[in-house]
Each structure stands twice: as C-alpha cells, then as structure tokens.
C-alpha cells in the first residue's frame, strides 16, 4: 500500500479537520484520499464514530469500527481539548499554517469552543467550511438530526415506499454521506477560490439543505409541485410498467425496466419469449392494463425463476436490456469484476491487521486515488503535528500532563 510514485491532485493542501461522526469526516476523507494533508482533531475519548458498527469480529473498540476506518483513511490524528485556552492556542497555531478548516459542530458548540468563523478567521484567514444540521440562522438552527430524520425532512422519503405503508429510509447512513459529500465539494470550491483568488472565506453547508437541494426527487419534486400543484406520492404497488420492478430469480433478485419500444424488444430478446414479440406489448394502453401485466408475468416469472442472478445479468448484457442484479454487500465485496478493476484495497493497521477497505471511487489517470495510511489511532500523530505547529518539544509534556493533548 506504499507504492506511491504518482502525485496526488491535492498534494500540498493542508486541512484542519474538526469534524465528527459521519458527514463531516466523509467530506474531509474526499480531500485526504486525493493527497491533501488532513489533520483530524479529536476530543479526549475520540470521535464517537469510533463506536459505530460494524466492528471486526463484532468486538467494539476504538480502532475496531469498520465505519470509522472507511471515513478516516489517509488522515493524521491528534487529540486536543478545545475546551481549554491552551488547546485553542494550539489549534490556532495549526490554522495559521492551514488552507482550510472544516467543522461539524452545532452553532452553539462552535462558539463555545472558539471554532466559529469569527474566532478562526484572525488566525491565518483560512477557508472555513462549516457543516451544521440546519445552518446558522432560522427556527431549526439548534435542532437535532439523525440519519432517519435528515432523510425524512430532506423531501425524498415521503415518496419512497408503498402508499399503504410508512415512508422508508435508505440503507445505512446514505443521507448523511450524501450531505457530507456536498460539503466535500464545497470544500474543494473553497480551496480553489483560495488558490486562484487568494481569499479565505466562510462556506456554510446545512445537512438539511444538502438534501433538499439535490436533484433526485427533492428539488425536482419541489419544483414540480410549484409548477403543477401535484406532489410526489408513494405508489400503490411496486411494479412499474408491463414487466418492471423487482423479480425473484433462482438465487436472489433482479431489477427490471422493460417499458415500450427498444427496451421491451431487448427484454423479450433476453428471455427469448416469442409470444411477447407482438407489437401490442409496446402500446401505452397495454402498459396500463393489469390483465396484460398478468399475462406477461406468466411468461416472465417462470423464466426468471429458472435462471440465476449471474445468468440473468449475463443475458441482460448480451441483449443490452435494462436489467441488473440485486447485489448484497457480500456481492459487492466478492464480485470479480469489481475486484479486477480495483474497487478494493487493503489497509495494514496496528490493531486490525490487514483488512479490505473500499479503494478508489473513480479513476483519476494522472493523479490516482491512493491509500497512504489507515485511519489514525487515537493521538497517533500528536507529537509530529505539534512539532509542525511550531510548539517547543519542551512544552509538550506539560500539555500532556494537563490533559490538553493526548
């Protein structure tokens, strides 16, 4: 994992990372993974994300969380108590030397710790990206969020699921990660503006608005309502079109879209169903006729149930049909094509040993995504970061004994 000759796109960028949990650390991971020097500042006891499942062999421990590993690859780590004057003095020495500071505390905590923009700006005029639940103004400013509440308020959940049932969340912490990625993009904008125009500035990302502002059924649904007065609702049933939706196969499930025209023809080709070739199957009226759907399913189901997911997926590719397998996490990990293309890499960690983690999310030809190190253990880089910040080596034992650093 140390075979690194290629340059990183963000070599030379220094980021002070004051974020916790999921969204903020994902934003700074995006920067670290492309070569930025990201110094993760943890409170005493560490980022609570160290307690996030899953753990290696299901045993909790500060360095055993897979989620924490994922979120913090390529970062350095220091433990610093920002509730103390001495701790803040160390922080401000660090910001003097940094391009960007990223925070993810509530507005009240930002002020209490002296990491709000007004407090940080005099110390090096860094760009500051602040992730908050709901921003710094407005009636919800101090409200709490979870993954589920974020997705609920974000505007997409209302239309996800069945009309007869409760609205549904996404898997895992997808909404937090999405909003975090938006903050990562904003951070890239702030770094660029700093390098091109020589300015520091304050960049605000509210997790709530980073859901509302997304195209996919959030801003589009809101604009659709403003235009038409109609609101997106959960559908009464899961199927879509004449042969469409999730079908069971011999060993799992597949997602099928086979509405009229080309995609219908390719689908029919894929399952080799001569009886479905008739042009009537591509008529819009047919698609809305429940009896026709039942008739088609009478052909589609038996075919599906006698083929494996791999067989269906191969047939779909051969026919260029809009059909894809329902992959589980096991599939994503074991899939030979993903592996062969480099989706997975391995960390070598003092506690975890060698473990697989996600590799590059995209292939940058000249400045590749690189795994340089696993997530930091608690305070792993405290000494070297303090030296970089210009602290006298003599001062460090006192800071340690007073609990300011660890």
């Amino acid at each position, binding site marked *: 994992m140390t075979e690194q000759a290629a340059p990183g796109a963000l070599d030379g960028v220094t980021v002070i990372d004051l974020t916790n949990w999921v969204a903020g650390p994902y934003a700074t991971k995006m920067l670290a993974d492309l070569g930025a020097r990201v110094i993760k500042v943890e409170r005493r006891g560490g980022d609570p994300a160290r307690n996030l499942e899953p753990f290696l062999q299901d045993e909790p421990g500060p360095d055993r969380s897979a989620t924490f590993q994922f979120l913090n690859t390529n970062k350095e780590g220091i433990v610093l108590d920002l509730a103390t004057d001495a701790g803040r003095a160390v922080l401000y020495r660090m910001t003097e030397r940094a391009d960007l500071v990223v925070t993810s505390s509530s507005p009240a905590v930002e002020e209490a710790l002296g990491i709000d923009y007004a407090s940080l700006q005099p110390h090096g005029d860094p760009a500051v990206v602040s992730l908050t639940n709901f921003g710094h103004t407005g009636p919800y400013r101090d409200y709490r969020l*979870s993954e589920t509440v974020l997705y609920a308020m974000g505007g997409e959940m209302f239309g996800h699921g069945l009309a007869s049932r409760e609205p549904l969340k996404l898997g895992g912490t997808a909404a937090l990660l999405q909003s975090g990625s938006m903050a990562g993009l904003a951070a890239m*904008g702030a770094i660029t503006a700093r390098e091109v125009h020589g300015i520091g500035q304050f960049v*605000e990302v509210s997790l709530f608005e980073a859901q509302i502002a997304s195209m996919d059924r959030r801003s589009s649904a809101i604009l659709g309502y403003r235009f*038409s007065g109609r609101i997106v609702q959960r559908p009464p049933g899961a199927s879509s079109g004449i042969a469409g939706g999730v079908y069971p196969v011999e060993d799992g499930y597949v997602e099928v879209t086979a509405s009229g025209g080309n995609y219908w023809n390719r689908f029919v080709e894929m399952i080799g169903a001569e009886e479905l070739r008739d042009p009537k199957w591509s008529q819009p009226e047919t698609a809305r006729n429940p009896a026709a759907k039942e008739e088609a399913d009478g052909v589609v189901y038996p075919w599906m149930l006698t083929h494996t997911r791999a067989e269906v997926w191969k047939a779909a590719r051969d026919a260029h049909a809009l059909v894809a397998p329902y992959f589980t996490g096991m599939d994503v990990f074991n899939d030979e094509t993903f592996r062969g293309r480099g989706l997975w890499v391995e960390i070598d960690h003092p506690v975890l040993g060698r473990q697989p983690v996600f590799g590059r*999310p995209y292939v940058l*030809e000249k400045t590749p995504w690189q795994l340089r190190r696993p997530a930091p253990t608690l305070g792993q880089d405290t000494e070297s970061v303090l030296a970089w910040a210009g602290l006298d080596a003599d001062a460090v034992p006192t800071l340690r004994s007073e609990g300011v650093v660890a």
Partner: protein
Amino acid sequence: MSQYLPLEGVRVCDFSNVWAGQSVSMYLADMGAECIKVENPYIWNPMTRAAAPKLSPMVAAMITPWMGGHPNNDPGPRPWNNSPAFIHVLRNKKSFTVDSRRPEGLAIVKALIRLSDVLPENLALGTLEKLGLDDDAIRAERPDIIILHLPAFGKTGAYVEGRGYGAHIDSAAGSSILRGYADLGPESNTQIFAGDYWVGVHGAFAVMAALRHRRRTGEGQTIELSQVECSAQMFPQAALDAAWNGREQHSIGNRSVEGYVPNGVFATRGDDRWIAISCRSDDEWRALTMFMGRPGWAMDDALSTVTGRRANETMIEERIAEWCAGQDRDELFHALQKAGVTAGPVLSARDAADDQHLAVSGAWTHLPATDDYPETDWVSPAYRFSKSDVRIRTSPALFGQHNDYVYRDVLGCSEDEIARLTEAGHIRDTFDQSVIDGA
C-alpha cells in the same frame, strides 16, 4: 477577477445527460465555469430534457410530478424547456445546438473543444467514438483537456455492455437490498435513485481536483467514474461487514445502523402525515419518556440502556406508534426537539415549499418567468460562500438559448457562416419536427 468564482475562466464542453451527468456540470457551473451544453436538434436523448419531446397534458398528468409536473400541468409546445426533473439542472448553463453527426457540425464541436477545459460525458457507450470523438481525437484538439466519463458499470471489465439508469445502478451497487420493508421481500421495493446525487457530486469533485493538477502542471487527464462502483461506497457498513465479518446485511426497514433505539417513522393525525423519531442516546430516551409522561411500560429499568431497548424494540415501536397516532405532526416535531429528542416531519414537496425554516434560510432563489415556465422560487445551491458568488446567477438554459453567444462570441463565426449553419439546420431553437413526431 470579479465575484471570486472558483472556476472563473474554466469552460466546459458539456456532453452530459440524464441526472448524474447533468448534475456534474451543474455543480461546475455553480462554481463559475462557463458550461456550454451541446445539443442536437435531430436527436432525442432519453431522460435528459423531458420524459418525451411531445407531451399532451393528459399524458403528462400520468407521469410522476418530479418529472411530469410541467407548469399548470400543460407541457405546451416545448416540454424540453419545463420538465421539473431536468430544467433545474440547467441553471447557470448555456445551451447551443449543432448536428455533430455531419462534417461541418463535427468541425464546430471540435472548435468548441479547442476552447474548452473540461469535457464531461455519459452518453451511451460508444456514442462519442461513433462521432469520431474518442479520447485521442478529443485530445488532438485540446491536449490538456480534462475528460470525465461516467459509465454505468465501468469502461473495462465484464460489465461494459451492461445498461442502466438510476434504479439499476442502485440495485448493483448494493443499495436496493438495504432498503424496503423488513417484513416484506425485495419484490415490494419501489425505485429510488440514490446514486444520482452521489455520482453528480463526486464527478464534479474529481474534475475540480484534476483542474488543480492542471493549474500546477499544465497536464490534463481522463477520469473514469463507474457509477456503480462509486455509488457502492454510499453503503460502507454493509460492504465492510461482508468484507470483515462475512455477514450479509439486508433491509432493517426504518431502524438505525447508528445504534439508536428507538428509531422509526410513525403516523400522526391526519392524512399521510408522518414523523421520524430517533433516540440517539440514553439521555434522549429519558427525555422522550419524560415528555410522554413517564408511561408505565417505559419505566422498566431494562429499557434505560440501548441494549435493553434493542431487546424490546418491536414493543417500543408499537407503543410510540400508538402515542403518535392522535398528535399533530408539526406540534410534536417542535415539542420533541425542544424536549431534547431528535425528531422531524416527513416533508412532502408541498411541506418543503411551505417550510418556515427554508423560507428564511436562503433555500429559494426567485427567478423570472420565461415563455416556457412562470416566475417561481427555485432551489438554491446547498453551499453558501461568503465571498465567492456561488449561487444561481443565470436562469436555466432553454434549448438553443445561447446559440448567438456561442457561435458569435465564443467560436467567432462570421455572419455568413452563421447564416449557412442556420440554413443547414444546425442553429435552431427547437428540436426538429422529426424528433417531435418520434420519427
């Protein structure tokens, strides 16, 4: 050097389509790039400007509102200029038309490439090659250009021939298996396109990283973003549980992977009104039970820890559902938050449009009417820069709206050339009738 825009002076020759691709270039345009969308009046790209080039009010009304909710439920003669799914991603962009399949059209595209810094594309695999615009040909015009490809399943490997929109990418990325009702099978899943958000943001991020490398070295590069591989990383808990522990995760409905119990979505008074509630700590659980008036069932000491609550999760959910059923959603939301419990309403599009917080937070940008849509509030970019003018600076680009600017000011065509290209049908402000008729 006005406005401190991060991507001032960067030009994007935009071949992106659908949502993922068009949101990549939208983010670049937000950041200040001059994004010129290349449009062909003789080709209809599915899911890029509207559900279809000809749409009666009756058909539009049958299409889900995020796509078919055209102004006053009447798409009018130019549905491609007012589908809510697609007109929004054209903010801050410019649109010009050219039939790139004809030699003189291809020459125009190449001239634009020579003047461009970034070329994002997610056309069907092989489309650009058929036009004679493979990477080498693009680079022959502009050696330091940054090319972004967004294939659904990768440009190499066994899945190259796979075809997919959002639902299929979601499916193969391991997303769909993790959502759905825990008591029903995946057959009951409806479609969602979680990957579009993710791919749009990551594509723009990767381009901006590559632009930085180019500023420092003069070197351009090609970026390949496989949508399925990128989107899979939105679900690290399930993938890493598989990789580290050999465990296969399935949907847990609305329960939490963050360790919160209870965590769910509950019906409140009225029609289709729901509230999400999470107890993120034992303190929040105590706050919730205090707020509920310390009901007897909740006072069991075993429930004071998350382990104890997890053992009784179904019972707790049933009690909370009963308790929520008669209450007003929004009163409960504010009261729970003030009591120290994490809660929030499940906002419909109407609720979001009426939301009191979004009304004052800068979430909306009011834009004037055009011939194709009325004046209304549009959703602002989610990031607020204190100095850089990153916001909706220009209204969404109507089809062919910037032909004059692109042909005259960018490409420097003469009046004669413009007349000739107009005569030949390259420069148009509508799709060709053959496209509209579906011929």
